[in-house]
């Protein structure tokens, strides 16, 4: 495998990892606050649809992004209502949200566009275009560093940069701010937060809302940056992979970055059987290739990652009086 192939592979990794990363961070905020969220998939899907739909209707991708985030936030509100206010089962709520998004997106799409649950193709200002960073063209020919900068670092949509910036930001918020301290505390011991005079409900809603925001961006990225429109079920299980990455990352922001990049890399490798062949020397059979990312995950999980301890109050509603 030559250098440029490696760069291409990593480039693909970055694109595939971005929606996972955003969804993973979304789950991180929510679960760190003690609210499990298996509805990442549904929120992402809803956002993918609404951002594409509104972008297509208005011609503005930014309005689309806003609509995508709004729809994801609305589902977050449902999740909050069920699991925070009414202390319902967080897993059931998440399952319901996934179903709701899968059904509603197609229903509405069909109602609005009558294109079989699809939005019209987006073009021009209705899409996020790749951004060429300064000097990218200029340094392209510099050996080694040139392709690295031009191919890998430059040339992504703004949402990719936003996703990667979200990692240090998340870390900073969680570990360097008052809000983060309280948010982590409420996921570990809500009673401690309550008796310290801080609203458990308020914090959890805030966390769930942030999760909605990030899922919204992830969905918008799928349909308006990676793609030029919505196709039904286009989240294709990425929310679940993000969830796996979150556990993999042991609920930590930087680990989340590495975990999602790893999943991204596996995905990228799957599209490059030639690379795998050149590395291991034999042609990988088709279906095995498809299973490879998942097999690798299991192997890594079993071999190198120890026990992951979730936030202690995770999944449990905060009940003071029975």
């Amino acid at each position, binding site marked *: 495998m030559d250098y440029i*192939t490696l760069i*291409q592979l990593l480039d*693909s990794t970055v*694109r*595939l990892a971005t*929606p996972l990363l955003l969804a993973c961070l979304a789950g991180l905020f929510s679960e760190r606050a003690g609210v499990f969220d298996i509805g990442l998939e549904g929120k992402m899907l809803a956002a993918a649809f609404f951002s594409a739909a509104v972008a297509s209707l208005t011609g503005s991708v930014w309005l689309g992004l806003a609509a995508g985030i709004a729809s994801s936030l609305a589902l977050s509100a449902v999740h909050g209502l069920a699991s925070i206010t009414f202390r319902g089962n967080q897993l059931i709520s998440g399952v319901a949200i996934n179903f709701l998004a899968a059904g509603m997106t197609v229903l509405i799409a069909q109602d609005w566009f009558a*294109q*079989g*649950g*699809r939005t019209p*193709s987006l073009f021009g200002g209705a899409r996020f275009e790749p951004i060429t960073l300064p000097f990218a063209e200029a340094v392209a020919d510099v050996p080694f560093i040139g392709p690295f900068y031009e191919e890998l670092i430059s040339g992504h949509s703004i949402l990719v940069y936003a996703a990667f910036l979200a990692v240090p930001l998340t870390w900073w918020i969680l570990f360097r701010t008052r809000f983060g301290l309280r948010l982590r505390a409420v996921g570990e011991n809500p009673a401690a937060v309550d008796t310290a005079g801080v609203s458990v409900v308020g914090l959890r809603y805030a966390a769930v809302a942030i999760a909605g925001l990030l899922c919204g961006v992830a969905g918008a990225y*799928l349909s308006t940056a*990676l*793609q*030029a*429109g919505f*196709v*039904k*079920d*286009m989240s*294709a*299980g990425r929310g679940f992979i993000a969830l796996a990455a979150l556990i993999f990352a042991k609920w930590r922001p930087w680990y989340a970055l590495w975990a999602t990049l790893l999943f991204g890399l596996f*995905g*990228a490798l799957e*599209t*490059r*059987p*030639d690379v795998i062949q050149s590395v291991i020397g034999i*042609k990988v059979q*088709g*279906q095995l290739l*498809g*299973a490879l990312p998942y097999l690798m995950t299991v192997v890594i999980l079993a071999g190198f990652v120890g026990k992951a301890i979730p936030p202690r109050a995770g999944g449990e509603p905060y009940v003071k009086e029975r």
Partner: protein
Amino acid sequence: EPALIFDLGGKFDKSFNEAAFNGATRWAEETGGKFAEIEMQSEAQREQALRRFAESGANPIITMGFAMADPLSTVAPDYPDTKFAVVDVNWLDLPNVRQVSFAEHEGSYLVGVMAAMASESNTVGFVGGMDVPLIRHFGCGYAQGVMATNPDAKVIANMTGTTPAAWNDPVKGSEITKAQINQGADVVYAAAGGTGVGVLQTAADEGILSIGVDSNQNHLHPGKVLTSMLKRVDVAVYDAMMAGEDLEVGEVVTLGLAEEGVGVAMDEHNADLVTEEMKAAVDEARQKIIDGEIKVVSYYENDSCPALDF
């Protein structure tokens, strides 16, 4: 009143089922008739839909996809007075069923010829949806066309996945396309349902040519889709509905190039892309296939492909 049963992909899959839907719609518009329809949601519904329509007196009942063969073989004998048509099936022996199959490998061969001629890098791509024999069948014909035209060419083939999600993952389709471009492909043929949307989009974005499938997809990205491999499911459905109660059953119809059941799409959207030589080559290949001078090997013959390794 005729009834139409779509396969799992749903009637708006932008290819196979949608073509059937278009044919039925055309019939409805022209005749003012109405037809019943259902989109399959689960395997158990296949038999159910057949029976329910048969019992309600629908005739003929047109069903889509090879997966209907098995349910049909149990249901059709129970309703001898009902006429059935099934698309993509040719191995049943039932007196009241009309079986229509297409020579997709022949059509794919032709687009392969065009791809090979349009390619400057001598590398072309194929993106399949879910890894099933039918898709390999498409890819196999395509690869034969490519190799026959340019023996030095390279065909890169990828499948999107092994679950039904593979039909609706444009993001992955897009990534596969980029990977193929990175390996030098400058024409890619998508036979992947909703995933194909991503393939065509990315090809257009990255400035390479793409080839659509089943329906005419040239208009999706005018000037960027080289052609589409047409599979005239719409015609088959339209004809069956037109025939109505007089539908001829008990026979197996194979629609190939000769019958214009499959072909390449030429229209104003790709006129600039198709050179005279290309046209000539395609016409010549078509004729030779019809005449039997060229034999395009079907993947089904011995579950393998002479031109491509899956």
